[in-house]
């Protein structure tokens, strides 16, 4: 179970800025620890952003996305009270889903 996904939606007129912080090590499989042991590859592979239960963004990521990545997206016509949820699945099969109500 991963750490909480932080979601922020800010309505500016017709447009909404959506910021999503996924807390994840995003290990490339190329780094070594203090003892010279290679750290296993471990990264978010897919994520989905939904608006009131309907998918609006589907993402696929590689190890080359930074650790604890912050994403920003834009959408049109989102209203106060709408629900935005984000879920991800990583290379180890771990999953996390969080939801906010737009205020």
């Amino acid at each position, binding site marked *: 179970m991963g750490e909480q996904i932080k979601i922020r939606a800010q309505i500016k007129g017709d447009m909404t800025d959506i910021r999503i912080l996924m807390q994840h090590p995003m290990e490339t499989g190329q780094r070594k620890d203090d003892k010279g042991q290679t750290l296993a590859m471990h990264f978010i592979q897919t994520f989905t952003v939904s608006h009131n239960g309907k998918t609006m963004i589907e993402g696929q990521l590689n190890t080359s*996305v930074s650790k604890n990545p912050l994403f920003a*997206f834009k959408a049109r016509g989102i209203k106060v009270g709408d629900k935005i949820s984000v879920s991800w699945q990583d290379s180890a099969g771990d999953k996390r889903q969080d939801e906010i109500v737009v205020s």
Partner: protein
Amino acid sequence: MFELRRKLLKGGSVAALLSPLLGTGLLVPTSVLAADWNRPAFGTRNIGDALKAYGNANTASESPDIVISAPEIAENGAKVEIEITSNIENTRSLAIFADKNPMPLSAILEFSGPALPYARVQLKLAETTRVRAVVKTLDGKTHVAFREIKVTLGGCGG
């Protein structure tokens, strides 16, 4: 009842028996709804192969309607923020490649409904590289834009 259950389990074909229901929408596993990870494209180790594996992105036409903003010089390659806007009508997806990364394809984003073809992402860049944004449209056309980013300290290894 138990007899039937035993038979089903014995046959080891529960999945096979249920599979005709999948198409009806009665039983839709959520894992099927989520986008599958494009292993062939993400696993390629040079930009030429990555573009081909992603679906003939090597023949994309360069477009001024894709705007990439990124720092000219990134001091730390571990976190480089890149902002991409597609002003191309009917943009369906956006893929981001870093030519000189060990695995050039970094991300694929698909937009639908209220989402606009815009994204700000944070990438690791191994060294000074050209970053390219490949846009696919609903009618199957492919467009590309480039941006050179100088990296002072690489962000992939130790």
